[in-house]
């Protein structure tokens, strides 16, 4: 038998060299359809609940303004919206970069099947990330649009930018997590630990609901190591012009990009080592 779909002389792996990651992304997006309902309901429902509950409910009890832009204090809902949006992207990351990776390597061994095709381990990892990006984009766009509808954005045009800030935060948390998951050979409840002892404290102590400066100094480090805080602060600067010194904005960007680049390099290395032992 021969490979008959290709013109004579063409390298049989040529299309895969260019598009391997996209084939994987295509597969992952189709697989997500199985839980598409959760994605849509979660993607629309959680912003509705949080924006209504915090913005309309909790905010009515808050007398002191927690934040202000160049034109004076802003509503509480405007303050929390960027944080909630980034949190939503990070939640997607905690779902997609944990169990999906474990399933691929261990539970269903799907990655080993892909490994036998011309698709390289880095393309496999890349395809998974692309598919998660698509899901994150859906989630963050839904968040931004609903935030706009609730009047939770400082400037309406920021609806176009905030989703990408959310994705920065999501990947800055998600890629190192994906590298961690790719190194696990057994599920001993590590993901539940990540959820309870990393995600939840980060969510509570990253200046999400009140400025980081409100916390006692010895808790500030949580914010500084938290991609959620860095992305949220960027989002606040963009949304309503939170006054942040230039050097600190640079730190936010450097930390986020550093985590993304470092995380991706670690992911590639782990995928390759594991699949090509």
């Amino acid at each position, binding site marked *: 038998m021969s490979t008959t779909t290709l013109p004579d002389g063409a390298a049989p*792996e040529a299309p895969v060299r260019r598009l*391997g990651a996209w084939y994987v992304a295509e597969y992952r997006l189709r697989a997500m359809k199985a839980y598409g309902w959760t994605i849509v309901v979660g993607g629309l429902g959680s912003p509705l609940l949080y924006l209504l509950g915090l913005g309309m409910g909790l905010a009515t009890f808050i007398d002191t303004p927690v934040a202000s832009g160049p034109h004076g204090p802003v509503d509480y809902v405007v303050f929390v919206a960027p944080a909630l949006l980034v949190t939503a992207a990070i939640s997607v990351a905690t779902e997609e970069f944990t169990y999906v990776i474990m399933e691929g390597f261990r539970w269903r061994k799907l990655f080993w099947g*892909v490994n036998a095709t011309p698709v390289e381990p880095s393309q496999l990892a890349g395809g998974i990330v692309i598919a998660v990006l698509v899901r994150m984009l859906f989630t963050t766009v839904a968040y931004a649009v609903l935030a706009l509808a609730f009047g939770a954005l400082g400037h309406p045009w920021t609806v176009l930018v905030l989703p990408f800030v959310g994705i920065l935060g999501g990947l800055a948390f998600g890629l190192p997590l994906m590298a961690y998951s790719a190194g696990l050979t057994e599920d001993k409840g590590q993901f539940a630990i990540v959820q309870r002892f990393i995600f939840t404290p980060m969510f509570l102590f990253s200046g999400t609901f009140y400025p980081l400066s409100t916390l006692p100094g010895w808790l500030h480090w949580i914010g500084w190591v938290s991609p959620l805080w860095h992305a949220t602060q960027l989002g606040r600067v963009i949304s309503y012009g939170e006054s942040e010194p230039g050097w600190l904005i640079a730190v936010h960007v450097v930390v986020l990009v550093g985590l993304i680049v470092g995380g991706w390099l670690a992911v590639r290395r782990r995928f390759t080592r594991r699949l090509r032992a």
Partner: protein
Amino acid sequence: MVAARGLTKRFGDFVAVDGIDFEVAPGESFGLLGPNGAGKSTTMRMVGAVSARSGGDLTVLGLDPDDHGPRIRAQLGVVPQEDNLDGELTARGNLVTYGRYFGIPRSVCAQRATELLEFAQLSERADAKVDELSGGMKRRLTIARALVNEPRLLMLDEPTTGLDPQARHILWDRLFRLKEQGTTLVVTTHFMDEAEQLCERLVVVDHGQIMAEGSPAELIRRYSSREVAELRFGTDRNEAAARVLAEVGDRLEILPDRVLVYASDGEAILEQVAARGLRPTTSLVRRSSLEDVFLRLTGRSLIE
């Protein structure tokens, strides 16, 4: 199709494959027979261009896997030891999805899926979720999946381990058809009957080394007698009985549960046993098999 010279794989201090030489010719069905842990799967992974060798030379389809992994894998079909089908997808969905990883257009994948489901005798279950299929069906689907890129070489790692006898025979029949169509097969197995069924030529592997090479018939001729008398005297009496039988037959093997007497005529052996006043609790005469070859070469049974 495949040429290995001094092929070696080390994991730290452990030598999994210890300098093996073999060649596979186009259209041939070639087997690696050996117990679990002999280095068969590691060899398959090196040939499959997913594991770099630690030493020696290897060419697959005329290419070095170190330099041309994707090009080699584009032309291989791989049936792994453990099924890694996507249980959430249908049988058809698995074939189409897998074809995409080879860059095959979706419409072509769909058409091939229909043909391959037919070949795997799964047309009626085409739209069933894989999780609902039996072990034998999953195995056939995995083979169908490995054919979706019309490979020049099909590699099967322990294709029937864990299947019931009927499912094994159906599977062998499918593989036999592929052989007839001229597909080159490389099979690993620790079942001698499977090696006899599927392989025209094989190497016997143990501890990462090749112990012998040839067709099943040649190997049996070279390393065993035509027939074997299997005698059971009871666990604690086998050794004593064997001492009395020292002169009988060409060769003796004393196993914990039985004594094997190798000879060209098994029935004659039974008569000699009786003439020496021994009364085995059970006795049986059979043709020599690759199991006997393995026992002779390594002093151990294939399945322990």
